[in-house]
């Protein structure tokens, strides 16, 4: 179908011709869904893989009006896809599942789904799904829709039209925004550089790495509590960016930070246990998360660069970049990390390394503040943690990033008052050793659960964490499996301290778990994490998983190196885990497109962990949501 044709169809006969993207790994259901949708006269595109769906959506957000996705998919959890689509493309997403448990439905809604259908789906239900598109559009651009400015948007009038739309949209948005700056999720962002907007969607702002970085810098400057869109906009000084765009992005960022915080809290707990509470580490995690946000945008460069070098400064660099982007309110990621990085020095006990992590700008100022405090405390612990990590990793202390330890601490601290020990146990789990893994797994699970719900933050970020615990459970005997779960959790940690991981490896087994996780995240994020690679292989496929998790986005993020290695292992763990290069990472619900760099991965892990916790919480079982996680990791 040509865009023009679709557009004209849409314009005239909506909902006829509405462009739907249907995702379901079950071919029978997919065929049925496709046929039903065509019967409703929608314009249907189908795919059986979530990663393909994401790819299609990222190629051109304006090609689709609505996404329908199954919840249980091997390559990526449906909720994760839901989050990503919501964050990146802001399209309405309808969830589909054979399972109608209230908890799942709730989860679907809290993750941003605009509807939840049960299989087998009936045509009557599908005949009305267009309402979600209209509702969203109407809410965002009421006037524009009616006035037909959209026409301009999608004709190839180009910039002018877009600009016009943007302005119009901006104005519209402003009106609504004035009421509540913060609640901007529904709004489509104006697209500066998007392609022709879809007929009914305004051009979206593409939050590139640089743009996000500016955003985060501005937020940090203002202070997370005082960061209001208007001021941020002024500080950013970007042409054609409207306050609404910023407000919308800010909201997402805050959610992201929240997740990171929770994750950080968890980690902090873990770190506490591990003994490496480095707030900076946490921050890194958060940074990563943010990074991920942008990473998707393709800023793996940053990551890679940062991680590869992983020199003390290097680490920071990495952290800074992504972190900076994502975290508002947090000290410039780079800053924090840098400081710590230097400290890292190369000892396993180098807590300071962790310190450099900047806790992702969780919306809670506490986190940041909390982190430093915890960090301090954790620092001491970090040493231990680092040691552990060292064990896991290739005993390259110098590179070890105590991040994991601190990260955990930081996170936990930030998020809640979770006892660090709890968190650490999780990290322990991450360890590759089976025994430990076993132990850890249980700890992790418990911790995770605890962590997850303590903060009460959306755990989407930490989805990856959850899986970790699950995995641990599933295959206690299977180190690999265990590793995976750990990775999940560790992911957070790892993200922050991929480097640390190596270093810490030697020292602490249990920390290694943590490290593993972090490493995983790191690894996944950057191919750069070479040092992690070896560790990964040994320790757990999880790492790979985590990595994958983090780099949901562009395949470039996911560095196959670590992942591949573990691939075999990981796969063993979860039947559903499919490692695909480039698509690893079942990213926990990222607020934005995180840059899957190490940092990002950690954050992702964190998010994933958080998420899992949430998920798990819903499941109300000790299993931290590993299951969910597992699914996520499948995206590997």
């Amino acid at each position, binding site marked *: 179908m040509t865009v023009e044709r679709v557009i004209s169809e849409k314009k005239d006969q909506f909902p006829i011709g509405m462009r739907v993207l249907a995702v379901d790994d079950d071919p*029978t259901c997919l*065929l*049925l869904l496709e046929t039903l949708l065509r019967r409703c006269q929608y314009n249907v595109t189908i795919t059986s893989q979530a990663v393909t769906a994401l790819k299609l959506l990222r190629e051109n957000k304006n090609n689709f009006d609505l996404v329908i996705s199954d919840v*249980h998919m091997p390559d990526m959890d449906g909720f994760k896809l839901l989050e990503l689509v919501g964050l990146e493309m802001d399209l309405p997403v309808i969830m589909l599942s054979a399972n109608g448990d209230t908890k799942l439905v709730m989860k679907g809604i809290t993750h941003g789904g605009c509807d939840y259908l049960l299989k087998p789906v009936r*045509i009557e239900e599908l005949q009305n799904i267009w309402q979600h598109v209209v509702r969203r559009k109407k809410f965002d651009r009421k006037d524009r829709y009616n006035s037909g400015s959209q026409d301009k948007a999608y004709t190839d009038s180009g910039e002018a039209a877009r600009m016009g739309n943007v302005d119009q949209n901006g104005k519209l948005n402003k009106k609504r925004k004035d009421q509540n700056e913060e609640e901007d999720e529904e709004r489509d962002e104006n697209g500066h550089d998007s392609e022709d907007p879809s007929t009914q969607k305004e051009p979206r702002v593409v939050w590139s790495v640089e743009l996000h970085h500016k955003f985060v810098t501005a937020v940090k400057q203002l202070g997370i509590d005082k960061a209001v869109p208007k001021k941020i906009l002024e500080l950013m000084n970007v042409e054609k960016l409207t306050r609404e765009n910023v407000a919308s992005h800010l909201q997402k960022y805050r959610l992201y930070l929240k997740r990171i915080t929770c994750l950080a809290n968890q980690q902090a707990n873990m770190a506490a246990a591990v003994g490496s509470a480095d707030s900076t580490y946490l921050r890194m995690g958060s940074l990563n998360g943010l990074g991920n946000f942008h990473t998707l945008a393709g800023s793996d460069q940053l990551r890679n660069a940062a991680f590869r070098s992983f020199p003390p400064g290097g680490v920071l660099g990495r952290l800074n970049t992504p972190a900076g982007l994502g975290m508002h309110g947090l000290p410039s990621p780079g800053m924090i990390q840098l400081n710590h990085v230097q400290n890292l020095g190369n000892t396993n006990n180098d807590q300071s390394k962790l310190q450099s992590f900047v806790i992702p700008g969780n919306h809670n100022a506490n986190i940041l503040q909390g982190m430093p405090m915890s960090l301090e405390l954790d620092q001491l612990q970090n040493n231990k943690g680092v040691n552990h990590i060292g064990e896991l990793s290739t005993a390259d202390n110098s590179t070890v990033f105590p991040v994991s330890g601190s990260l955990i601490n930081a996170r936990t601290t930030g998020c809640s008052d979770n006892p660090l020990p709890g968190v650490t146990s999780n990290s322990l789990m991450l360890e590759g050793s089976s025994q430990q893994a076993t132990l850890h797994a249980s700890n992790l699970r418990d911790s995770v659960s605890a962590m997850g719900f303590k903060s009460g933050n959306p755990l989407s970020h930490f989805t990856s964490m959850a899986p970790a615990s699950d995995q641990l459970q599933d295959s206690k005997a299977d180190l690999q499996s265990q590793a995976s779960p750990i990775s999940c959790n560790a992911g957070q940690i790892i993200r922050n301290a991929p480097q640390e991981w190596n270093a810490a490896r030697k020292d602490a087994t249990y920390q290694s778990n943590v490290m593993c996780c972090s490493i995983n995240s790191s690894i996944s994020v950057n191919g750069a994490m070479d040092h992690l690679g070896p560790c990964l292989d040994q320790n757990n496929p999880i790492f790979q998983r985590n990595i994958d998790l983090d780099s949901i986005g562009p395949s470039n993020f996911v560095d196959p190196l670590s992942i591949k290695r573990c691939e075999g292992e990981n796969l063993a763990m979860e039947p559903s885990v499919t490692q695909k290069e480039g698509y690893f990472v079942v990213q926990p619900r990222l607020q934005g497109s995180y840059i899957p760099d190490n940092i990002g991965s950690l954050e992702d892990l964190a998010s994933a962990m958080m998420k899992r916790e949430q998920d798990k919480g819903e499941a109300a079982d000790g299993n931290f949501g590993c*299951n969910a996680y597992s699914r996520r990791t499948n995206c590997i």
Partner: protein
Amino acid sequence: MERNPMRRQLAVMRQSLFDQGYLDEQFVQLEELQDDANPNFVEEVVTLYYRDSARLILNVEQALERKPFDFNKLDGYMHQFKGSSSSIGAKKVKAESTLFREYCKSGNGEGCMRTFQQLKKEYATLRKKLEAYFQLARQAGPMETACHPK
């Protein structure tokens, strides 16, 4: 001419599938989607189902050979299987898979195994019946799909 008795026979066969609980309302939905543009839709979907679900059945079998049982995994497979079974309206098969999942949730390995055997039986029986049904439908020639049971 010849078609009429065949069509009648086809209608009877179809009705009995519903009456005996092999198929449910969802199957009717499939039939409704069949039209000139999609003349063999129902058969296509059913064929696809049996092809794809064979894999799941195999996975479950293999999983049941490994002790101790990984109930989570089993549940996962069955969840998927249930989803596709319900999409074609395989009523009895779906019921067995629901039961299987219950046993998984309660960690009842024995129950799982028993239910799985029953499930496979229903699965095979339905397949035979549907194959016979489609064959007859083809012989009866292109005709409107059987009327709804209602």
